[in-house]
């Protein structure tokens, strides 16, 4: 969706028209196939993350349907156990690593810079690099299935099952390598989001005027930085056990199987909140716009987000209640796990109070938000239940837990993501999505979701464990499983409708205009789709609902004096966003792509030989040198 023509809105002033043309030229992403590989604008990269993650979501959803087909009846032989285990592993891994995080990252990369009034992110080339690494890693991971190389040890890959003795083929190596790709991509995005949000905000946008969505992204990015290293270490240690015979997880040589679980879950638990928090940010954004009211309890909401972020690091042992750890330790984690209900509850009630009695615009985004409330609250309640050690000892590793996490992840993250999609689609594409298709999609998804996952609570309680490729007819699980499978197809139809809606609307939707929803935040203060430079003049803000106050006063403050012949954006101070300097940003360049390919080859080679580590270090270095080497004209010239 590149802007082929400039929309000059009938400008009378010739001089400024020229300036606008010039600045748009400077910020243009080159068209054409080869040009695609040089784009660095955050809008291009953000869009790619979103589209790619949604493609992976649909693929992974199809895998879920295959699983459900197999489980629709007892002793079904649609899938043999090996194929089922591989599909199950890829479904879980792809949903968690290739869809959920990148989708949220994509929305953040696209929206956050616009929302803070910046022209781009702090490190555009790094942004692009992170995307290519994700694209390559994700594609290879999915390709492993038809090539018979997919991992089969579950998305959490417990040792010793995933170790060199019991997982002999390349599957787990593909898994560890994919983790490496994703962690590089997520970490680069996280660092960049933090720096962008802290340093590139519009003048006057002090921290307490930042939209809640931006706070959510900021907290999430910090969580990524402190959580991902744990899984990096875990996957690297596993990779080394398999590749060069280290003994980290071999109990016969001083290693520990539980070390894997601690390392994995220390990451794994914050991970689900990393997925959740941006979604909660989207809920805040949608509620403000569709009630045309400010949120109640801004400070409480910010503290709640930070609270969730911090508390989430102290919960991980609740995934290990059945491993025989001392009861006293588990009791601590039980209390901590229940505690996360406080910051979650504060947010829920702040939203309810904001909605109270408001004249609500019942467009599709708001429907998805309603669905979020019902489903996420239910999931949160089962979460408090499984926080209890004795209860969890019955339902751990059963379909009850499958129900729980789908309720919180689909309800808590996917529904808000859908809301965000319908909300920001007009901004991203310049066209409105169909309301009719949107309502049908929501209805089918909501009904299908509950039909699919609610019966799973019962299935777990009556004895059905997780990760089973089939079950015996005598168990009495037939009817419930059949219902679940039926629901899954309705759920799939619901998502399919949104996919169709998105494609049709992108091609033929009604034109949106700059601010179809009359929202208050800065991303709506530019064209739809945004100008190449985001803002012809960067805005300066004086409160937390800038567009509404501009409408009230009839006047808006802007930043002047930025170059129109090279890419520049304002750098402001951390706390109260006073202008500090100007950052000159790079233009289109192929080096991020080249370096991403080099590093990918190195990561993949590691599956086969440790020497790729050495090759990788040196060739990546070469790539980075070419990337950063200063080229004329230097800045002062």
């Amino acid at each position, binding site marked *: 969706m590149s802007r082929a023509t400039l929309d000059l809105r009938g400008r009378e002033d010739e001089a400024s028209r020229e300036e606008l043309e010039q600045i748009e030229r400077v910020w243009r992403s080159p068209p054409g196939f080869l040009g695609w590989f040089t784009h660095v604008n955050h809008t291009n990269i953000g869009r790619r993350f979103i589209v790619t993650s949604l493609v992976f979501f649909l693929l992974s959803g199809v895998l879920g349907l295959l699983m459900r087909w197999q489980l629709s009846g007892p002793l079904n032989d649609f899938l043999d*156990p*090996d194929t089922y285990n591989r599909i199950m592993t890829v479904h879980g891994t792809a949903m968690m690593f290739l869809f959920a995080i990148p989708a949220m990252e994509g929305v953040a990369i696209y929206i956050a810079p616009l929302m803070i009034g910046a022209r781009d992110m702090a490190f555009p080339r790094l942004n692009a690099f992170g995307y290519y690494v994700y694209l390559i890693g994700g594609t290879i991971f999915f390709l492993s299935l038809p090539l018979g190389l997919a991992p089969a*040890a579950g998305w959490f890959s*417990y040792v*010793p*099952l995933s170790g060199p003795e*019991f997982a002999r083929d390349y599957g787990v190596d593909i898994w560890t390598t994919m983790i490496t790709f994703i962690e590089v991509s997520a970490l680069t995005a996280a660092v960049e989001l933090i720096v962008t949000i802290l340093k590139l905000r519009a003048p006057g946008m002090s921290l307490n005027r930042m939209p809640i969505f931006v706070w959510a992204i900021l907290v999430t990015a910090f969580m990524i930085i402190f959580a991902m290293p744990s899984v990096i270490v875990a996957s690297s240690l596993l990779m080394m056990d398999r590749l060069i015979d280290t003994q980290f997880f071999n109990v*016969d040589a001083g290693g*520990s*199987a539980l070390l894997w679980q601690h390392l994995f879950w220390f990451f794994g638990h914050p991970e689900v909140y990393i997925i959740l928090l941006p979604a909660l940010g989207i809920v805040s954004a949608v509620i403000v716009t569709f*009630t045309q*009211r400010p949120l*109640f309890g801004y400070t409480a909401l910010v503290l709640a987000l930070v609270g969730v972020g911090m508390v989430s690091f102290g919960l991980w042992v609740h995934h290990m209640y*059945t*491993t*025989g750890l001392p*009861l006293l330790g588990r*009791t601590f984690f*039980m*209390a901590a796990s*229940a*505690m996360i*209900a*406080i910051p979650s*509850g*504060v947010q*829920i*009630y*702040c939203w*309810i*109070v904001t*909605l*109270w*009695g*408001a*004249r609500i615009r019942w467009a599709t985004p708001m429907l998805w938000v309603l669905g979020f*409330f019902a489903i996420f*609250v*239910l999931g949160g*309640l*089962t979460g*408090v*239940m499984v*926080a*209890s*050690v004795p*209860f*969890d*000892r*019955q339902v*751990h*590793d059963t379909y009850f837990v499958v129900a729980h996490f789908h309720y919180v992840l689909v309800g808590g993250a996917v529904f808000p993501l859908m809301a965000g999609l319908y909300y920001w689609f007009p901004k991203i594409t310049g066209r409105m999505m169909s309301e009719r298709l949107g309502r049908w999609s929501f209805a089918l998804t909501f009904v299908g979701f509950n039909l699919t996952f609610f019966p799973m609570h019962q299935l777990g*309680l*009556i*004895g059905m*464990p*997780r*990760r089973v490729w089939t079950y*015996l007819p*005598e168990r009495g699980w037939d009817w419930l499983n059949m219902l679940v499978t039926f629901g899954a197809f309705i759920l799939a139809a619901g998502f399919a409708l949104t996919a169709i809606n998105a494609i049709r609307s992108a091609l033929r939707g009604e034109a949106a205009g700059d601010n179809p929803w009359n929202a208050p935040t800065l991303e709506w203060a530019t064209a739809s789709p945004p100008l190449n430079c985001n803002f012809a003049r960067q805005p300066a803000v004086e409160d937390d609902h800038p567009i509404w106050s501009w409408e009230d006063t009839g006047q808006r403050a802007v930043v002047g004096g930025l170059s129109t012949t090279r890419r520049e954006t304002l750098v402001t101070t951390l706390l109260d966003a006073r202008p500090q300097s100007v950052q000159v940003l790079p233009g289109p360049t192929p080096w991020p792509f080249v370096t991403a390919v080099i590093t990918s080859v190195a990561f993949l080679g590691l599956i086969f030989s440790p020497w790729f580590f050495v090759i990788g270090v040196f060739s990546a270095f070469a790539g980075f040198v070419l990337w950063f080497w200063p080229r004329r004209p230097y800045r002062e010239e």
Partner: protein
Amino acid sequence: MILAACDGSQSALDPGGPDAHAIALLSQWMFAAGAFVFVVTVGMLLVAVSLGRTGARQLSFRRSAIVVLIGGVAAPIVAIVAVAASGALIGDETEGAQGPEGPEIVVAGRMWWWEFRYLDDDGEVIAVTANELHLPVGERARLRLVSDNVIHSFWAPNLQGKTDLIPGVENVLFFQPDAPGTWRAQCAEFCGLQHGLMGGLVIAEPRAEYDAWLAGQAADAAVTEGPGFDAFMDLGCGECHTIRGTAAAGEAGPDLTHLASRRTLAAATLPNTPGNLGGWITDTHSVKPGAKMPASVPKPERLHALIRFLGALE
């Protein structure tokens, strides 16, 4: 289906012992409380969004703050305390050694079946059996959970929560059936290809019957020779299976000394009948794709002798 008689239930909602009872009671309270909170929260939401239809209204700051504090802070605190306290109390009960001391049994998770080694008071092995755990009613049996391969988890929901069998670690689990009965167990930690059909039976019987059963299991095989036994050894079964009192001493597969006394085959997948036994031997991988046991297809006469032999191992 003949199975209803010899097959038990596998459900946390049908407790057969004090541990499962305590957890089931806890579950009921939690479901009730959860349902209440859900109804209140979603109810408030629905009220909130429908009020705007007839003119916008807004709660005062004070009212809003009260709602947030009650709903978001006070109610969760009550929940936290309730969960933590009940969890700690019941945790102690269900994982502790209280109650009359019962037998001590080593449970070894194998791929993909359960080995049970009954110990006497001195810790010596009395009997070894597979996939069918007998326990005396009213006594608190002590299960020592071990694994020398991957992680498994022993779960008999009618009696107890589950605990994992982790290589390098020995975990302890207590089972105390209240009354005679038959229940099912199933592996609850993903352990590979046949994780889904790694089941077991837990059978509780009065002490006297239990003692008789144990004595039977401790004895050597009832039949130790004949054409069936010859077929057994010729086909190489003795490399993996033990039949005490004979030369068959393999340890890779389940102990078959008293196979005929068991109600099921293949980790509680098939009822133990001659037809199923024949099918299991000759077509193993149709029943359990990926099982480590190779199928054997002897000539029909040998197969009949083999099945008769195995059927006599009471």
